[in-house]
């Protein structure tokens, strides 16, 4: 029970939100849609959950066509839109009950599915959802999306605006859910979360840059990548920007990620150049490209 997307295009007036998007999600896969704001992630989610109609293209979710069989899709998917839409003035328990009921089930029936998640917020079950912290709202919204045992789970930026600890816990929960045979499509702007998915699609400005497993996707980085550090970050950036052989430089924490225009990089030559610019404490070493490096390279 997977997802299949073919040549989906969607525009709002003059703005093209999605441009010829195609990909497949295998049943039981944890698939990540990685891209910044405005990439088209939410639009794609709304098309797949049958809330919007694409201008062109087809898609099926759990075997049902998004256009003609939308009712079946609405009965069998779980959806967590951005801003974890919960009823602020209902309690934790009331929210969960409500979603269970409108899907024709009860909390007890599928409790084992949400237990791991729900036990963390159960002590607060009589508290109004509006008064929960971001991390707890996230867990509640996830439970509500799961309570009817959906075949496919759509999570639209579930970790945005949430602190890193909660983010980490959330992904651990997703991994455990995967074992229960649910297909999960997640979108996130955080590149480091991409590494936790089975496969990812990098998306920017409505186009898919690349689809692959996290390990394989970095192999799409075309050139050797180097970590360079020096005593003065700003001076380093300036020098490298003005360097004739620089292909790309991006700050990355305490280093700068550097690629050279030439096929064979001249480490000594580069070091000499930087020293001539007044920099000291220079380190240059080869490094593995990350998903973020790959994204930026493909997005250029």
């Amino acid at each position, binding site marked *: 029970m997977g997802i299949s997307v073919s040549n989906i295009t969607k525009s709002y007036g003059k703005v093209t939100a999605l441009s010829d998007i195609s990909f497949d999600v295998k049943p039981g896969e944890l698939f990540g849609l990685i*891209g*910044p*704001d*405005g*990439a088209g992630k939410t639009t794609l989610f709304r098309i797949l959950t049958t809330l919007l109609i694409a201008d062109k293209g087809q898609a099926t979710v759990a075997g049902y066509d998004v256009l003609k069989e939308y009712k079946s899709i609405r009965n069998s998917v779980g959806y967590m839109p951005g801003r974890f839409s919960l009823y602020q003035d209902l309690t934790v328990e009331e929210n969960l009950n409500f979603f269970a009921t409108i899907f024709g089930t009860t909390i007890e029936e599928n409790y084992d599915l949400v237990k791991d998640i729900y036990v963390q917020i159960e002590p607060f079950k009589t508290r109004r959802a509006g008064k929960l*912290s*971001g*991390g707890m709202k996230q867990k509640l919204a996830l439970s509500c999306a799961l309570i009817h045992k959906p075949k496919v789970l759509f999570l639209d930026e579930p970790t*945005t*605006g*949430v*602190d*890193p*600890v909660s983010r*980490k816990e959330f992904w651990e929960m997703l991994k455990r859910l995967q074992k229960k045979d649910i297909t999960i499509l997640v979108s996130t*702007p955080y*590149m*480091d979360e991409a590494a936790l998915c089975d496969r990812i699609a990098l998306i*920017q400005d409505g186009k898919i840059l690349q689809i692959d497993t996290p390990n394989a996707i970095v192999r799409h980085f075309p050139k050797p990548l180097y970590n360079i550090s020096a005593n003065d*970050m*700003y*001076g380093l*950036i300036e020098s490298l920007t003005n360097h004739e052989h620089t292909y790309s430089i*991006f*700050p*990355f*924490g*305490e280093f700068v990620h550097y690629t050279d225009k030439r096929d064979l990089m001249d480490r000594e030559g580069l070091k000499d150049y930087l020293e001539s610019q007044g920099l000291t404490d220079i380190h240059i070493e080869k490094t593995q490209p990350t998903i*973020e490096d790959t*994204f*930026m390279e493909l*997005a*250029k």
Partner: protein
Amino acid sequence: MKDKNVIQVEDLSKLFGDFAAVNQISFQVKSGEIFGFLGANGAGKTTAMKMLIGISSPTSGTATVAGFDVYKEAESIKKNIGYMSQKFALYDDLTIKENITFFGGIYGLSKKQIDRKRCELVDELGLQEVANSLVSSLPLGWKQKLAFSVSLLHDPKIVFLDEPTGGVDPITRRQFWEMIYKAAHNGTTIFVTTHYMDEAEYCDRVSIMVNGKIEALDTPKKLKAHYKTDTMNDVFLKLARG
């Protein structure tokens, strides 16, 4: 000694009833430093920042920003700092030029200065073609870069940035940080909060707030060594969990 510290905070607290949102924090920020102010949601970051930019009065403790006392000289603080946040930076229904003119006026620049700065800004960011378009038509990354530049219009000593790069694509994020480096290089102190732990690495020093207190304050390198981790993200996780 004192002039070198543009921000000086000692035992600063903010209480709401019994609840201590900010609990006796102390730190200094040097001129030209890029200071990262981190913490989970609800740790007290925003409350602390509000006190420093002069829009909230502390309950106890002392703090001076750009040499002005946060209790008695809040208005002077506001005149001498720049501010930009993720939630709001520019007016969507004004053009780029109009925004620059407006904020220039608010910061008290003369017409000549505003005109000059406007040209400079538009050129620097390459916005000539869209200078007369509404800000709402700009992509998010451009808006943030423009907002940052606008916050620097009046050459403030310190700029406070509240999660300035949320949701922005990775390339633009880095361009933004290059702009920050340049400003710091020119002597502006940068006080920035962020959720992106990799951005914490760009800072000269980082402080991490947990439950209203500062639990760590040092350079990223030293923090990683101390907590025996490779990344600031892991430092944060260790601190917040423990």
